[in-house]
C-alpha cells in the first residue's frame, strides 16, 4: 500500500491537519495515524490544492531551444503547479486534433504536471477562418480552452462565430485583448508619459479596453463564455466588473508581472521587461490588485514566455515579447497579496487553483482545483509562507533566462508539489 502523510499542514481555511494520501487520492484529513506511511513534515507550511496555470508558453514544437514540454513542466512543478495550459502559438500552431494530442502526449511523457493543450481559435492564428475547434474538443486532448494568444481575434465576426461555436461543448475563448489597428504594428510598450520621453511606440490602455468591451457585449449577445487573458489596465477591470454585474459570462486572469512590475522599468531599454500586454503604470497595477482581491479578476495566470537569449539581445523594438513566470508566480502573489494582508491563503487557493480549474472545466470533471477533502485527487502544493527567496535567473530549471525577477527578494516559497499523490518537488527540489 503506497501511503504518504502530509503532517501538520495549515489548510487554506486556517485549521491544521494531517492529510493521508493513498493511490493518488486524499483518504483522510484530520489527525492521521499511519505508522508505515512515508511522512512529509508540513508544520508551518500551508497546503493548497495544486496550482493550475491557464496561460503557459511551452514553445514545443518549434522553439525547443527556448523551452520544451519537459523543461516547462519542470518549471511548473517547481512553481507549485499540477496543471498547465499550453498556448497554441507554437510552430506549427496547435490548430488540429493531432497537434493537440501530440502536446498531451508530450506532457504525459514528462509526467510532472497535467499538460492541457489550448487550441487555436483560427487556423494558423491568422484571425480569418475558424480552426477545427470541434475536432480538437473531441480529440484525446479534450480541448476546452481556445486562444489565438499573441494575437487578438480582432475581427468581430470571427469572434462572434467562435463564441457561438464552442458553446456546444462547453468551450471558452481566451482572448488576447488588443486592438491591432489602434496602435500600429510597431507598438512595444505602454503608451504614456514614459513612452513619449523614450521615443518608443506604445499601446494605449484603450487598445485593450475596446476589445474587452466589445467581447463582453458579444458574450452577452451569444450567451457564450469569454475569458480575458492577462488583463493589464484599470479600464478593462471597470468593464469586466460592469459585465459581471450584468450577469454576462466573463472571466479574467492577471499575470504576476502585471501585479508588481511597472512601466518605469523600461527606462533603461532592457528587453527583459518587454512583454505583451506591456507593463503599465502604478495606477493600473493598484487597480489590478484590488480586482484580484475582490474577485473581479478570477485567476492568476503566468503567461510564462521563455525566449532564447539571442532573441532578447536586439534593440528594444526588435526583441521578443515575454518573460518567465512559472517558478516565481506563487512567491510573487504571496509577496504582493498575502504578505500585505490583501488576500488570505484561501484566496490564493481560489485564484491560483480553484478558479482557473473551473474556468477550464477541470474542476467539474474532478481532476484539478478540488477541495482538500477525502476522495479528492491528491494534487497538493505546500507553501512556506515565511520562506525567503532572492531570485537567481541561473537557478531556474527553465531553459531560458529572460527572468524579470532576477535579484528580487520575495516572501513565500513553494516547498513541495504532489501530483496525484506523487511528489514532483520536495524541499523546493525537483524529484
Amino acid at each position: 500500500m503506497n501511503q504518504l502523510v502530509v503532517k501538520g499542514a495549515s489548510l487554506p481555511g486556517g485549521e491544521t491537519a494531517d492529510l493521508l494520501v493513498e493511490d493518488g487520492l486524499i483518504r483522510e484529513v484530520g489527525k492521521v495515524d499511519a505508522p508505515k506511511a512515508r511522512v512529509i513534515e508540513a508544520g508551518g507550511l500551508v497546503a493548497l490544492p495544486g496550482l493550475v496555470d491557464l496561460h503557459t508558453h511551452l514553445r514545443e514544437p518549434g522553439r525547443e531551444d527556448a523551452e520544451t514540454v519537459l523543461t516547462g513542466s519542470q518549471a511548473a512543478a517547481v512553481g507549485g503547479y499540477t496543471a498547465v495550459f499550453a498556448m497554441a502559438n507554437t510552430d506549427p500552431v496547435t490548430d488540429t486534433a493531432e497537434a493537440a494530442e501530440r502536446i498531451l502526449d508530450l506532457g504525459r511523457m514528462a509526467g510532472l504536471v497535467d499538460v492541457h493543450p489550448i487550441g487555436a481559435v483560427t487556423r494558423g492564428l491568422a484571425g480569418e477562418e475558424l480552426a477545427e475547434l470541434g475536432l480538437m474538443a473531441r480529440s484525446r486532448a479534450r480541448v476546452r480552452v481556445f486562444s489565438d494568444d499573441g494575437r487578438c481575434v480582432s475581427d468581430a465576426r470571427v469572434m462572434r462565430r467562435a463564441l457561438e461555436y464552442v458553446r456546444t461543448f462547453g468551450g471558452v475563448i481566451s482572448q488576447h485583448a488588443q486592438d491591432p489597428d489602434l496602435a500600429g504594428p510597431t507598438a512595444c510598450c505602454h503608451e504614456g508619459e514614459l513612452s513619449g520621453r523614450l521615443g518608443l511606440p506604445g499601446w494605449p490602455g484603450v487598445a485593450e479596453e475596446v476589445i474587452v468591451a466589445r467581447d463582453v457585449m458579444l458574450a452577452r449577445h451569444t450567451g457564450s463564455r469569454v475569458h480575458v487573458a492577462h488583463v493589464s489596465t484599470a479600464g478593462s477591470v471597470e468593464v469586466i466588473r460592469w459585465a459581471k454585474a450584468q450577469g454576462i459570462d466573463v472571466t479574467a486572469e492577471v499575470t504576476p508581472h502585471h501585479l508588481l512590475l511597472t512601466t518605469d522599468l523600461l527606462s533603461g531599454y532592457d528587453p527583459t521587461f518587454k512583454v505583451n500586454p506591456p507593463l503599465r503604470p502604478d495606477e493600473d497595477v493598484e487597480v489590478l490588485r484590488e480586482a484580484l482581491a475582490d474577485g473581479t479578476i478570477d485567476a492568476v495566470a503566468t503567461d510564462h514566455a521563455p525566449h532564447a537569449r539571442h532573441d532578447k539581445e536586439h534593440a528594444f523594438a526588435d526583441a521578443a515579447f515575454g518573460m518567465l513566470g512559472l517558478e516565481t508566480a506563487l512567491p510573487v502573489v504571496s509577496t504582493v497579496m498575502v504578505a500585505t494582508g490583501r488576500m488570505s491563503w484561501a484566496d490564493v487557493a481560489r485564484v491560483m487553483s480553484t478558479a482557473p480549474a473551473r474556468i477550464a472545466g477541470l474542476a467539474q470533471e474532478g481532476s484539478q482545483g478540488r477541495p482538500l477533502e477525502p476522495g479528492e485527487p491528491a494534487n497538493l502544493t505546500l507553501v512556506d509562507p515565511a520562506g525567503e527567496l532572492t531570485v537567481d535567473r541561473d537557478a531556474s530549471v527553465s531553459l531560458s533566462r529572460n527572468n524579470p525577477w532576477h535579484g528580487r527578494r520575495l516572501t513565500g516559497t513553494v516547498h513541495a508539489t504532489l501530483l496525484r499523490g506523487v511528489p514532483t518537488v520536495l524541499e523546493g527540489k525537483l524529484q
Partner: protein
Amino acid sequence: MKHLLSIDDLGVDDIHTIFETAAEMHDVQHRSVKKLPALRGRTVINMFFEDSTRTRSSFEIAGKWLSADVINISGKGSSASKGESLRDTVLTVCAMGVDGLVIRHPASGAARQVSEWVDAVVVNAGDGMHEHPTQALLDAYTLQRRLGSLEGRHVAIVGDLTHSRVFRSNVKCLAKLGAEVTVVAPPTLMPAGVEAWSSAAGFATSYDVDEVLPKADAVMMLRVQRERMSGGYFPSPREYTVGYGLTRERLAMLQPEAPICHPGPMNRGLEIAPEAADAAASVVLDQVSAGVAVRMSVLYHLLAGEESA
C-alpha cells in the same frame, strides 16, 4: 562622461566645454590644411543601421580632420531580420579593435544597449525617435553664435514631435542652457503624455503656431517624414502647411533677426517655404558646418583623453 548617448549625460559645464572646443575646431574648417593630429592612431567606426547622408558624412569628416581612422559600416534595417542579434553584430565589429563607435539605429535605446555590451566609446548618432544629442548640441551652438547666451531666450520648435529625436534632444539641451522652449504640433503629432512630461522638463506646448512665432527669439522647424503623411496624422500636406508650416506669411510674423533652424533634409513648400529656408535669418547651412565642429569636439573629448593603444 564615457559615452554620449543622451543630452542627459551632459552637465551645463560639459556643454560649454564642448562649445569652446567646437569654436576652435570651427576655425580649422577655414584653414587650407584641415588636419589636426589629436586622434592619430585611434579608430572610429560609423555604424549606420539607417540611411543617413549628412550625419554620417559629418561624423566622417570630423573624425578624419582629427586624424582618426574612420570606417563606415552600414546595415539596412534591423539585425533581427538578418538573424543576427544586435549584440553579436556590434561585438563582432568591436572585436576588430575599435576605439569609438558612432551608431545610428532605427530603434530607440539602441545606442544605450550597445554601450552596455562593448568596451568602445559609444556616440549616439540618432536612435529611433529617442535622441540625437550631437544634433541638439550643434543646434544650440549655432543659436548661441547668433544670439549670444541662450539664457531666457525663447525658442519655438515646430513639427512632428512624436517621431522626432531632434526635438527630444533639443528640449533637454535648450533647457540646460536656460532657454524657454515652446513646442508646437497638431495633437496627433504630440508625444504621448507630453503634458506631464513638459511640466517636469520645463517646456511649454501649443497647437497654435501663429500665437507662438511672434514671441520667438529663434524657430526650429522639424522635418515631416513623407511616410507619416499617409498615416492619418493629418489630412493632407496642404492642410499641414496651412496649419503648421513656416510659410511666407508667417515669416513676416517672426522677429527679423530670429534665426531659422532646420535639421534637414527640408521639405521645401511643406514645413518650410523657400523664402524662409533662404532668408537672411536662416541658419540651415551654418548648422551643417557647425555640425562638423561640434562632432570634432565631441570625438576629441571622448577619445583624445583616453590612453593611446
